[in-house]
């Protein structure tokens, strides 16, 4: 903090704000994410129980309800890795890790945009176009290749195709936001619908597998897909793909934390006016961040095709929307995305177990996903509970839950207090002339150390 004070002007001030936000609230964010998760699971349990009461069955499973929440959650959370002792590479573990790999990519995609103050709901669309382009280009390339080195050529081409296509598709809403002030929340959602329909059209019109009745592209040869390495050939998971996703997470963390570009991204996310003043081209940063975000979504699509499917099929699961939840749960931290991505991988593969082992509709996971987003979005709720249950005599406890931030009583009249990650999206809303002082920076800057 003291270093930042020496450097005068906006740049120093913004750095100070960043330091405060990242260091002070890291533990609090973790606490909020975990509380939100627990609360969502609890609400979900009530929902399962209630739904079980509403249905009819021969024999009640749990307190008069047809569904037993404990059985459901056991399947959802604890059966996702199968029997690791007997066979560490069993199909269930492979499915879980495979889902997690893709979700890390989509989570990173949303996180990078979020850091720049852009709310990219369009990762789903970017993933779809990336996946389709990967399937088409990889097929074309694989037809010209043979021999032991074919994988070495074809795989990078496929992943790169996904990244470039997704990146270009992500650049559209980025440019629309930067240069035409079009609200990216709406444009990206619209582009999701467009991507789904365009992909359907492209497959039907040009790239359909003539030997299949389903709307899908031609099957890629095995050498063009991610090599399975440790896992059996039948597994829909590849260690190589996981390694790629982890590398991307580490690279994104480094890029955001330690490079000039990362600085531009974070400052324009926190306070675009201040960033401009400090010499950051906020518009170009917005487009660049959205391109990068789209590229990460596109890589997710490439991995989906090259690891899971082996071709492109038009009914793409909602990886992009899960990516939003992953990011929000991870507090926008690229390394946190790894943990949250794994958790959602567990949930996704767990929902398959739920539908196999119980009568509970697997759509349950969608509800829990929404609840998590809602609860993480309201940190004040958990602060209130923490305040109520920690007595005022134990300041140590309060400090943890409160992130060491001044409480209401100490700061009368501050109606624009910085809360969590949500604040960074402030100037994204409506994409219109908002007063720059309604944001985190000015408020925090007012409290001189």
């Amino acid at each position, binding site marked *: 903090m003291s270093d930042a004070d020496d450097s005068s002007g906006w740049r120093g001030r913004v750095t100070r704000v960043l330091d405060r936000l990242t260091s002070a609230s890291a533990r609090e964010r973790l606490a909020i994410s975990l509380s939100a998760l627990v609360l969502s699971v609890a609400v979900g349990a009530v*929902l399962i129980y209630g*739904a079980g009461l*509403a249905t009819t069955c021969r024999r009640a499973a749990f307190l008069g309800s047809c569904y037993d929440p404990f059985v459901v959650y056991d399947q959802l959370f604890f059966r996702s890795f199968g029997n690791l002792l007997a066979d560490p590479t069993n199909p269930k573990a492979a499915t879980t890790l495979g889902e997690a790999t893709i979700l890390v990519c989509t989570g990173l995609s949303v996180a990078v945009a979020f850091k720049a103050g852009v*709310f990219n*709901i369009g990762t789903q669309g970017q993933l779809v176009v990336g996946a389709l382009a990967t399937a088409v280009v990889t097929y074309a390339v694989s037809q010209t290749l043979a021999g032991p080195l074919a994988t070495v050529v074809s795989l990078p081409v496929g992943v790169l195709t996904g990244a470039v296509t997704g990146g270009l598709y992500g650049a559209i809403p980025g440019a*629309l936001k930067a240069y*035409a*002030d*079009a*609200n990216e*929340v*709406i*444009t990206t*959602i*619209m*582009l999701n*619908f*467009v991507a789904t*329909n*365009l992909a359907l*059209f492209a497959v*039907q*019109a040009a790239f359909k597998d003539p030997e299949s009745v389903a709307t899908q592209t031609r099957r890629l040869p095995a050498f063009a897909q991610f090599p399975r390495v440790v896992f059996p050939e039948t597994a829909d998971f590849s260690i190589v793909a996981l390694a790629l996703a982890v590398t991307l997470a580490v690279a994104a963390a480094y890029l955001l934390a330690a490079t000039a570009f990362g600085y531009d991204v974070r400052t324009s996310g926190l306070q675009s006016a201040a960033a401009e003043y400090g010499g950051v081209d906020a518009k170009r940063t917005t487009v660049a961040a959205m391109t990068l975000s789209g590229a990460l979504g596109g890589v997710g699509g490439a991995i989906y095709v090259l690891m899971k499917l082996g071709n492109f099929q038009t009914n793409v699961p909602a990886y992009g*929307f899960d990516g*939003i*939840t992953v990011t*929000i749960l991870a507090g926008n931290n690229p390394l946190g995305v790894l943990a949250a991505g794994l958790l959602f991988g567990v949930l996704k593969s767990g929902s398959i177990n739920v539908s196999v082992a119980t009568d509970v*509709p697997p*759509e*349950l*996971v*969608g*509800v829990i996903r*929404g*609840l998590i*987003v*809602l609860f993480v*979005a*309201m*940190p*004040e*709720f958990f602060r*209130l509970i923490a305040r109520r249950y920690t007595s005022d005599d134990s300041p140590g406890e309060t400090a943890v839950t409160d992130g060491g931030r001044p409480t209401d009583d100490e700061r*009368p*009249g501050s*109606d*624009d207090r910085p*809360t*969590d990650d*949500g604040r960074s*999206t*402030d100037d994204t*809303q*409506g*994409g*219109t*002339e*908002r*007063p720059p002082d*309604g944001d985190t920076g000015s408020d925090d800057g007012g409290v001189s150390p």
Partner: protein
Amino acid sequence: MSDEASTSGSESDESGETNGSDSLVERGRRGVAAWFADAGLTGYLGVFTLAVAVATTVFGLLVPESLPGAIVAILLSEGTLAATLRRTVPIAFAALGGIFAEKAGVINIGLEGLLIVSAFVAAAAAHFLGSVWLGLAAGVLASVLLALLFAVACIEFRADQIIAGLAIWLIALGLAPFASVVFFGSKNTPTIDSFGTITIPILSELPVVGAVFDASPMVFLLFVAVAGSWWLLNRTTFGRWVRASGENPDALDTAGVNVSRVRYAAVTLSGLLAGIGGAALSISLRGFTGNGPTMVNGRGFIAIVTYLFGNYDPIGALLSTMLFTSLTQLQLELQASGVLSVPSSLVRTIPFLTVIVVLALFGKTRIPAAAGDHFESGEE
């Protein structure tokens, strides 16, 4: 790009706001004048579009067998107007709801979720209770409850409005198919009865506009709701509070009005209106379908764009919704009549692309100054 054009546009809006006696026509005239004065890209495009539309109409009337002729014939047919009105109902109701919430300072991006929940609950309740009107009531109730959850999160617990709204959408997107499978064993509800039609004698015999007077009760309800919303926003104390709560909550607070309570009321009202829209959607289509993005399929998001485009005015929102739905209907009919032969997957992208283009050209509407911000009274 169109910086100057929109700045002067919003200036004229503000002056219209301050001396409220200005008529809508006067404001519109000045807005148009400002556009032409600045002659930004937006202005040129607007003039160009209008010129194309006029040329198409004239040419179409003169040469009925041509493509423009087919377009004009479709536009003038009663079926088109009737279908356009039917398509307008859910979007326009959601847009009205969005106006109240956002005017009060709460950006309600969860409209889509409210539509989904009310569409499902209305269809399910209509099935179990055997009455479409009870279904409508149940759908509205469900939407209001979800809107209240959103309001508590945003107002009481200071949640980020965009994220909380997104959560409302995601919850509804999971909950409706979940409940449908629990109750009906399928993501779709069984077929239910629909609303009848109300036919007004004599007026319904009129050419072209006759369809307006021979329509679902929901269409009439929409007209009532639009007029009522306009009156409520512009002519009542509550409307003044709502606007103040979005523009200058501190002033409203100083005047002794509870800002939170106004915002609660506005968000509840948005739940009520969106609820009618969602229920009307599923009941008029005789059931709820819950695959993929469900039968609501982005209508809530389109509603947000139409009220932005309609500049937060209930009448403007209705007109821009109708513009949007009539374009959708036109391309569908062109498709059906074989005039155009474009694959349906491509055609389906048109509404979404239209929204993006509209946002890019007119995205700079002046949103309420305090929209998106949490408000906290000085006294606690």
